[in-house]
């Protein structure tokens, strides 16, 4: 793996800026907190967009902006940051969605106390997330991975809705316990590197050289997989998600759904497939079917929800099913679909949660039925919701279209039946979005009983636009995004093939 050193420390600077923001928030008065958070996370967003100019798309498979400081020489433990195309896409998603979340919080009625802490936690969460997607040292990756847990735990527990304590507990325990398996896995492969090469190392690039027997590889794969399957989540492990997403304040749900879930899928792609390609091939049929099962079951769960927020939360699970199924198809279309869906779902789920939060601000209820028809007095909100809904559904031109379409194409490369199964999943996901849109638009109450609400405006409109515009961009100009990760996919597929050179069982 080639490294391109940084011309300018974009990534470390983002993290440092955010930490500086936290310090300022803690030191200054409470009334400045929101503006400091807005300025600093805005600055980081601008920084990440400026860095686009310096990103070399012709060699997107290489790790660019690479910088490294050694922490413990003996363990080869180092703080190393950098981004290849995939990481880079996630980095931009993180800075964008975090900014959106803070933008939204400024006018959110739910956020009316302990503002200093609130915005400090959000900046901490953003900095940890940037760290997760750009760290190339496995132990440091783990540190950031765990660190994202703490801010969200407090955000859910302090500013959440009725069941917030229960949900915060559940969220923390599920993720923390599952990620302990990851920790054992991470140190195990470092030790395995020592066995094979005589040196301990936590560096991702060193660890790529390890060779594993199928049985041991399977064991390590499972250690990693448990953590990421709970985080992603895949169906039997998803039970923390509706509670956490349902009870968190709007901005919390936005960050949770749009970025935190991507940590799981990103890590599956980055670690499980890259480090254990043989095992990934070995388990491919199981994992693809598991992904498809996740799509179908989660869609059914979604349709049966009456609470808008839980509805959106379950729909996230079904989208993650597409990501997992596409990823483990291990062909070009599947991987493209998977990464596109990761990015697209980041945008649509953010928008959907803001929609739910907006409804709650107006009605003080998450019950979908209550809003029936009122949407006619809120044209802007109606348009935004329609774009989001159709995007999420996978209408051509919408952002999720590419994820779904390419997964089906990828599945067709194996057998038609598999493609039909994915198609069935896609069908159910259309069904629940249509149900949502129908309730909002078409179930009209009698004229006299309609309530007039103010439309989306100000900061909330900015927040909506910041996700809806990229959503259209993804849908209409997908090749812009393929440029980020196509090279990475080629590299990955080459590696998988190479690892199979000696046959699966060697």
């Amino acid at each position, binding site marked *: 793996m080639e490294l391109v050193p940084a011309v300018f420390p974009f990534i470390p600077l983002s993290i440092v800026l955010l930490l500086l923001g936290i310090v300022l928030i803690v030191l200054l008065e409470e009334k400045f907190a929101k503006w400091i958070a807005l300025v600093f996370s805005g600055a980081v967003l601008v920084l990440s967009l400026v860095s686009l100019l310096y990103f070399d798309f012709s060699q997107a498979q290489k790790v660019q902006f690479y910088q490294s400081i050694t922490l*413990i020489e003996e363990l080869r433990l180092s703080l190393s940051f950098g981004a290849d195309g995939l990481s880079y896409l996630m980095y931009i998603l993180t800075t964008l969605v975090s900014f959106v979340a803070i933008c939204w919080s400024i006018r959110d009625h739910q956020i009316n106390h302990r503002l200093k802490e609130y915005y400090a936690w959000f900046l901490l969460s953003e900095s940890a997330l940037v760290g997760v997607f750009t760290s190339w040292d496995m132990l440091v990756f783990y540190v950031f991975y*765990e660190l994202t*847990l703490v801010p969200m735990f407090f955000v859910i527990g302090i500013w959440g809705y009725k069941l917030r*304590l229960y949900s915060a507990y559940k969220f923390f*325990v599920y993720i*923390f*316990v599952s990620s302990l398996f990851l*920790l054992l896995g991470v*140190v195990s492969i470092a*030790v395995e590197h020592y066995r094979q090469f005589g040196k301990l190392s936590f560096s991702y690039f060193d660890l790529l050289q390890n060779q594993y027997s199928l049985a041991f590889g399977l064991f390590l794969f499972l250690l990693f997989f448990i953590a990421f399957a709970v985080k992603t989540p895949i169906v039997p492990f998803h039970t923390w998600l509706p509670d956490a997403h349902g009870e968190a304040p709007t901005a919390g749900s936005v960050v949770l759904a749009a970025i935190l879930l991507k940590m799981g899928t990103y890590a599956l792609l980055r670690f499980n497939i890259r480090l254990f390609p043989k095992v990934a091939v070995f388990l491919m049929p199981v994992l693809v079917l598991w992904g498809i099962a996740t799509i179908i079951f989660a869609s059914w769960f979604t349709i049966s929800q009456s609470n808008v927020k839980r509805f959106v939360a379950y729909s996230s699970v079904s989208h993650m099913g597409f990501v997992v199924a596409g990823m483990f198809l291990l062909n070009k279309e599947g991987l493209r679909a998977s990464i596109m869906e990761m990015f697209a779902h980041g945008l649509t789920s953010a928008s959907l949660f803001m929609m739910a939060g907006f409804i709650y601000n107006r009605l003080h209820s998450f019950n979908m039925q209550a809003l029936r028809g009122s949407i006619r007095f809120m044209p802007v909100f109606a348009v935004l919701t329609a774009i989001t809904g159709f995007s999420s559904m996978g209408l051509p031109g919408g952002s999720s279209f590419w994820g779904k379409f390419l997964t089906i194409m990828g599945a067709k490369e194996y057998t038609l039946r598999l493609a039909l199964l994915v198609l069935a999943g896609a069908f159910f996901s259309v069904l629940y979005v249509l149900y949502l849109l129908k309730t909002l638009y078409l179930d009209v109450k009698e004229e006299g009983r309609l309530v007039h609400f103010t439309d989306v405006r100000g900061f909330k409109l900015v927040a909506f636009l910041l996700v809806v515009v990229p959503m259209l961009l993804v849908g209409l100009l997908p090749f812009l995004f393929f440029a980020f990760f196509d090279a990475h996919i080629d590299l990955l597929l080459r590696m998988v093939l190479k690892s199979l050179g000696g046959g699966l069982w060697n």
Partner: protein
Amino acid sequence: MELKDLIQIEIPKLALFVPELIVLITGFVLFSLDLIYKRLSHTLAISVSVIGYTLALLYLVFNFDLRGETFYGLYVRDSFSSLLQVFMILLTIILLAFTLQYQRFKRSLYGEFYYLLSFSLLGGMVLASSYNLLLIYIALEAVSVSFYILTALQRGDFTSKEGAFKYLILGGLAIALASYGAVFLYIYAGSFDLRHVLHFNAPDKSFLILGLVFFLFGLAIKIGVVPFHFWLPDAYQGAPTPITAYMSSVGKIAFFAPVLRVMPLVQESFHNTWVLVVGTLAVITFLYGNFVALVQKDVKRMLAYSSIAHSGYILAGVSVANAIGLKAVIYFLLAYSIMGMLGFLVLAVLERSGNWENKLEDFDGLKHSQGFMAWVFAIALLSLLGIPPTVGFLIKALIFMSLAYGKLWWVGILMIVGVGVSTGYYLRLVVLMFMKERERRAIANPTGFERASMVLMAVSLLILGILPMLLWNYISPTSEMLFRR
């Protein structure tokens, strides 16, 4: 060995022994002060202690490279002993910031306190620097006897007496077992020096195994390893809280020191037995500690069980008798001594508020009434749980690493279960402090010294987690040195 080697007369190299001497003299000065003055001035006693310990600490720090053996090999000064002693003395000095207010509030101000502290510290320092079973035995007694009395210091309190009594009886058993083990080891190798004993290669190893088992079980009682832990929760709960903090930090370092000296000497021939016995004890200890801590209503008792669980994690590292395991264990031990102590010291301050009973309910909404204490306690708890970037995370990662190195997957997986269970009770406190709202009466304010010490400890938990090389660069050569013995 020839006769002239045996009767060679050695002039004691006192330079190696200066820190202990200083602490010993401090102890005697405090003792005399207590005898002379009917009403001992506590400021005087504390000043004398702090000056004495600081001198010892400075001597140690400036002569950190001091190496050698003296008293015919009874006493060994190496980087291991220096490292452990620095921590023990530092923590004792920090402790002194907390005792006066607490004991004044609890009406348990006695002069004994100061010199018993010195003597137990002295015992701990000697424990950290000897391979000789006899000296270890004497030092064990010095630490333990001081601890019995310190535990019972709250004379009016029944739980204090009960705890001390249980401690006394089981502690006596421990000493008996350890000395019995020492005798077996002597029969086996004809020497009290652990290095000779463990390197001695007789065809019949039964006495070695028997002796080691008895000796280590004796230490296990002192450490509080399940199933020998019954005294620990009672003694920890009954003792005045600063003393609990002291026992869980300095006491733990002291009692673990001989175990860590034995660990690198484990030979190939009984390596498997060692792994099996210590590994099993470790698993039982951390599982039991965590599960029982989960149902405690009393926070002090809960932290006592968490201390048992942490002994279990340390033992898990000990069971992998290799260099990485030893490094992990030393780092863990030193880091835990800070976290454990901080946890109990927070309680020591909070107990000074009226009506405070260390119950879980008492912590409701602590963030609103005493934000500083809540934050410090939260850092200690998150560190005990093992959340990055606190040091608690790093030490668990190191233990996992040593387990992966020894291929002890079963211990690793069970440790995940143990840590997972511990989430329940650490997190509950964080939730109570930060997420419950409650109108409260006044909560005790920490004094300036207390505040400074707590900030120092909390910050050091973060620093040791973020910049591990600060401590690692001392630990790594130390453990390699121990393996060369």
